[in-house]
């Protein structure tokens, strides 16, 4: 009797879990079917490559955001951070041109500086949140404004452009492809695998989840809460710098309008993917699907003139809400109890 009951509950649990896990994937498949029905060219190789490449920016940033959000934090500064890092990278590479020439050395210097800046900016966010005891929302709202105005200042209100000679060397980082897949997609895959491993197979990932579920309990369990939380922001900063490294060669420029709204897109990707906004539960795989869903929506809207341009935001909003609704508790529970 009790055995039957026990097996029933595990079955229920598994079913509910399956629906939750599959939510983003179902949404993405539905979107692809809609896209294909609207225009068969949607599934053309060129468009799929564009889609994956485009998802790489938000996707890589969102992998970092998954850690921050899982540990109960939030980072609103990523879009501005990307713009500021892109701006500084361009300035550094342009001025290194004279001494190092337009070769690999200059590009590597730019990339290296980008990573250092990303780690540093993430560390500042982390330390202000943990040691400074300021809410993450406020800290990153502040740094969001600071980084955004810094790039405006560096660009003198205009646009910073990378020297054309360097662009030639740097171009393959965005436009080049290995084994048929564009380079940014490979970076996205690498970041995703590392992120998944870190989240699911290491003590660090479990600490993030523990802190997000209950910070006080985590503290009493001898987890170094401040250090782990700061680390999540540093990882976020690293992800932003990687995204920036593959972003800069695309158009070779940075301005005040670079990376606008990326923070919200990254957070949306994380939540669509099944991570809980208040922390305690994070899914890297879901985040990747979430990023793909967001890019696919924009792509589909460009593929049809059925919907007024002015309603693009409405469609995006609806799909984000539906995608999250697909995987939240009640919907899954109702089904599970019926069976």
């Amino acid at each position, binding site marked *: 009797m009790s055995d039957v009951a026990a097996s029933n509950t595990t079955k229920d649990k598994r079913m509910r879990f399956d629906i939750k896990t599959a939510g983003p994937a179902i949404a993405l498949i539905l979107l692809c079917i809609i896209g294909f029905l609207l225009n068969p060219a949607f599934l053309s190789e060129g468009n799929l490559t564009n889609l994956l490449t485009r998802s790489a920016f938000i996707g890589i940033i969102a992998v970092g955001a998954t850690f921050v959000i899982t540990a109960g934090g939030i980072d609103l500064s990523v879009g501005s951070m990307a713009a500021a890092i892109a701006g500084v990278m361009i300035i550094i590479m342009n001025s290194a041109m004279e001494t190092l020439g337009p070769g690999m050395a200059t590009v590597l210097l730019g990339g290296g500086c980008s990573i250092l800046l990303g780690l540093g900016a993430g560390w500042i966010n982390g330390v202000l949140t943990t040691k400074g005891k300021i809410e993450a929302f406020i800290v990153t709202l502040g740094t969001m404004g600071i980084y955004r105005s810094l790039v405006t200042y560096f660009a003198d209100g205009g646009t910073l452009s990378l020297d054309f000679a360097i662009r030639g060397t740097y171009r393959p980082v965005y436009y080049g492809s290995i084994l048929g897949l564009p380079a940014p997609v490979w970076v996205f895959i690498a970041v995703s695998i590392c992120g998944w491993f870190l989240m699911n197979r290491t003590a660090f990932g479990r600490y993030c989840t523990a802190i997000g579920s209950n910070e006080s309990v985590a503290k009493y369990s001898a987890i170094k809460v401040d250090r782990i939380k700061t680390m999540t922001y540093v990882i976020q900063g690293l992800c932003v710098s990687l995204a920036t490294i593959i972003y800069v060669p695309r158009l070779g420029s940075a*301005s005040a309008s670079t990376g606008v709204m990326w923070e919200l897109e990254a957070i949306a990707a994380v939540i669509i993917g099944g991570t809980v906004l208040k922390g305690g539960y994070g899914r890297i795989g879901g985040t990747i699907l979430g990023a793909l869903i967001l890019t696919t929506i*924009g792509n589909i809207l460009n593929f049809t003139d059925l919907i007024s341009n002015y309603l693009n935001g409405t469609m995006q909003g609806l799909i984000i809400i539906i995608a999250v609704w697909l995987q939240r508790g009640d919907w899954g529970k109702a089904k599970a109890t019926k069976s």
Partner: protein
Amino acid sequence: MKNLKTLSALALTTALALTAGAVSAETLKIGVSYPTPTHAWAAGMNWHAEQAEKRLEALYPDIDLILINSPDPNAQASALEDLVSVHQIDALVVLPFESEPLTDPVLNVKKSGALITVVDRGLSQPGIEDIYVAGNNPELGRVSAVYMKGRLESGDNIVVLRGIPTIIDNERFDAFMAEIEGSGINVLDHKHANWNRDDGFEVMQDFLSRFPDIDAVWAQDDDIAIGVVAALKQAGRDGDGMFVVGGAGMKETIKSIMDGDTLIPVDVLYPPSMIATAMDVTVAAFKSNGPVAGRYILGATLITPENAASFYFPDSPF
């Protein structure tokens, strides 16, 4: 007794007012107020305003131009109050942040007796400004369409990348479509690319996947055009006489037109330097023997390799 007091007070104020008038007759103070530059076009405007200030002050030692930029409509309203109370300006050149919230503040400046010049964005109440200087958005769309009609034949296909959904974008787009109508050129679709390079790149990528045959692109704006060109080059569809028409007059675009680029062969002017025109006209109101009050609508000049040099300012940020 009481009357005497009032009288003497009156006399005192009149005397003060007279001396104040005498001082301001010596140096003409002209306030110039515009939004803080946060994008390239506005940064160009800031640069041209500073250039005009240097030039005009060198030309007329008795003219003092006071440049103030403000980050939002409220700050601009306060800046206008300061220009009147602190600087006691004789004239105001203003590019309003938004029409509605700045109509009253500008009206107050007018009540102080100053000459009013409004630039680009009109106020929501007519008759306040003495001088109005603006670019011509419908004309920008029309000139672009006329160029397209000259290059393309009936049955050719174009796509349109629009700006941020605003009245400016609508004016440009509607005039463009009206001019294209009846020419037999097909506008395959139009999408908003928000006057932004990244959006221009992505929207154009999608247009290229969606439409196998595109003969030309109207990008409406130089920033969008840069994204469009990157997408065309990536897809290898930048040959076969394909061309892109932008707009505004960004220095990089004008430079490449001077160098004979075929992908962006022309540009349509919507110049940030209009602030300098407005400052010139305002100064002329005090210095010229001819009348200057009125409305100045600048042409949306087609920039070609022949005339590009006169619109090229290498030191401007835009």
